[in-house]
């Protein structure tokens, strides 16, 4: 049952992709205009995240450090002539680059004048299908100056690159390219900028911040609410920003996770999948419950953040994944958004 639905979804999304590639110049222009508005031509249905076969292989301990951390998201165009066998070389090149940048006086943080060490490593099991390229991790660590603490390396910055169910992108590029469209960073902005610059120069690629609009946030809220959880760690929470002047107003709406699930179950009709109608109805129910009490139309305001026991996401392109079981599922959606932004 699962594998059937999985293929079904890929065919649907790649067909959409083909449509746009074969489009006329006018259609392409229309499509790019549409992208600038908040409308996203998205597949009308998505699979509910399940614990994928590949993920079962990866060691929860090894990826535990990815959870409960806030990551800033970027989309990344395919890397030209990137090789997994050269990771050690990349590490020393990047390390030298960072040192040079800091010497130039660019992006120097006051008080941080110690030696740094850069590592590149692969993250096994962080993929959707076997076709997806291996995910890899870059870290900047500080090397303590004191001889007694020689062994200790404090992680200053982490960034990782992955591709989860990236077939639609993989199909379009030649073998010289490595597709890791989703980039997640944690640490100082300045370090993200330096690492980004080096990658752009070395692999002729381009980073772009990945914002998440209200439409996709609603989808995420619905999908993550649909995930089966043994126990709930947190309430299902939404944050809206109200465009009123002169004072800003934020409205936070948290529902007990069991009640959110009950609402979702009442709305949900198609097993294993989430459809557009279901997302709309789910959100509509939340809006109408709120309106009944406060007479305020939440639909006229801007959704900026959603948070569930699975993960939380902010419109500025920030994500925090809270549940190991659905890590791949969350990344799959983000990969989809990243790929869409690249095209």
């Amino acid at each position, binding site marked *: 049952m699962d594998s059937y639905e999985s293929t079904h979804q890929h065919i649907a999304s790649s067909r959409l992709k083909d449509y746009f590639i074969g489009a006329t110049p006018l259609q392409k222009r229309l499509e790019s205009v549409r992208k600038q508005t908040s409308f996203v031509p998205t597949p009308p249905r998505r699979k509910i995240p399940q614990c994928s076969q590949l993920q079962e292989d990866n060691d929860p301990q090894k990826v535990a450090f990815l959870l409960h951390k806030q990551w800033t998201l970027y989309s990344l165009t395919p890397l030209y002539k990137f090789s997994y066998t050269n990771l050690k070389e990349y590490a020393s090149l990047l390390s030298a680059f960072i040192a040079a940048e800091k010497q130039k006086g660019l992006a120097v943080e006051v008080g941080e004048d110690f030696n740094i060490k850069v590592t590149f490593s692969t993250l096994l099991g962080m993929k959707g299908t076997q076709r997806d390229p291996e995910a890899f991790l870059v870290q900047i660590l500080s090397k303590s100056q004191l001889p007694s603490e020689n062994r200790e390396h404090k992680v200053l910055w982490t960034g990782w690159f992955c591709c989860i169910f990236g077939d639609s992108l993989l199909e379009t590029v030649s073998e010289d390219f490595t597709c890791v469209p989703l980039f997640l960073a944690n640490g100082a902005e300045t370090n993200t900028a330096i690492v980004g610059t080096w990658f752009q120069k070395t692999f002729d690629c381009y980073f772009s911040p990945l914002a998440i609009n209200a439409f996709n946030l609603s989808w995420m809220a619905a999908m993550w609410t649909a995930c089966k959880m043994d126990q709930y760690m947190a309430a299902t929470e939404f944050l809206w920003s109200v465009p009123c002047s002169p*004072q800003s107003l934020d*409205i936070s709406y948290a529902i007990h996770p069991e009640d959110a699930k009950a609402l979702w179950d009442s709305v949900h009709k198609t097993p294993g999948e989430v459809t557009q109608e279901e997302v709309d109805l789910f959100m509509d129910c939340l809006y109408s419950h709120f309106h009944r009490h406060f007479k*305020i139309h939440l639909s006229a305001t801007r959704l900026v953040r959603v948070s569930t026991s699975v993960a939380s996401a902010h419109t500025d392109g920030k994500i925090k994944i809270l549940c190991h079981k659905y890590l791949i599922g969350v990344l799959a959606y983000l990969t989809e958004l990243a790929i869409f932004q690249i095209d």
Partner: protein
Amino acid sequence: MDETVAEFFKRTILKIPMTEMMTILKAWDFLSEKQLQNVNFRQRKESLVQDLVLLCEKKRASVHDAALLDIVCEDIDLFDMEQFKSSFKKILQRALKNVMVSFRDAEENAVWIRIAWGTQYRKPNQYKPVYVVYYSQTPYAFTSSCPLRSNIPLLGQALTVASNHHKIVKMDLRSRYLDSLKAIVFKQYNQTFETYNSTTPLQEKSLELDIHMDSRIIHENRIEKERVQRVTQETFGDYSQPRLEFAQYKLETKFKSDFNGDILAERKEPLRCLIKFSSPHLLEALKSLAPAGIADAPLSPLLTCIPNKGMNYFKIKDK
């Protein structure tokens, strides 16, 4: 003496606390020193009052004399600030070994109290004090958040006992602006100091509407916009709102929807929600919602009742 006058005397004298009785009667200067000396001030208050009223009758006190006595009561601050301070301090010091209490008199019969808490073995922490502002002429006190929650009941008790009240109740009203809390609690927010012509502003507002549109459209729009403006004004008034930063609602209500009838129809349990509104100036923001088309007018009473009820924390359940 007229019965009503006698009653007036009785009630006025009853209001005077025993500790102030002599002071007030002397200040009133109606009963002579000699007469007062003959009164037994150690008896029960009811009996004392009876004796005093009899004395007044004998001296043919009039209703004007009673009125004067009333004024004297108002004039003399029956609340003894020094006694309050000393009592408050004693209560805390008796209960806790290490506590430092400081006072500062402020305007409007207010006293600012600063309390630095210590523990059995540690000196008072000067960097995490609690501040209390007590308005002696009112039954209200305002406190800053207490880092050691275990001290809160003691603080309440000290305030209650020192101020001669029976009990203290925590209000569901919190803000960073003491002036706003005062405005709400003392109901001072709806005073307009400027003379206000109620007709002109509305007329000005309706003229602002785009007059280049089709006349039929204007007509419908104008009526609704004016209605919204009017209702908003009736609800919020024309004065500037007291400044609050948030309002929080804990809802336990069943889901009901006109359009989505079968959703959760069989579920008996309510939806448990926690809703929080935050803004640098909450009431002004709420006031702007209906005119902006984001909310209906009138706005929900759950929101508009905040200043009137003096609450910004609510628990709402189905009836």
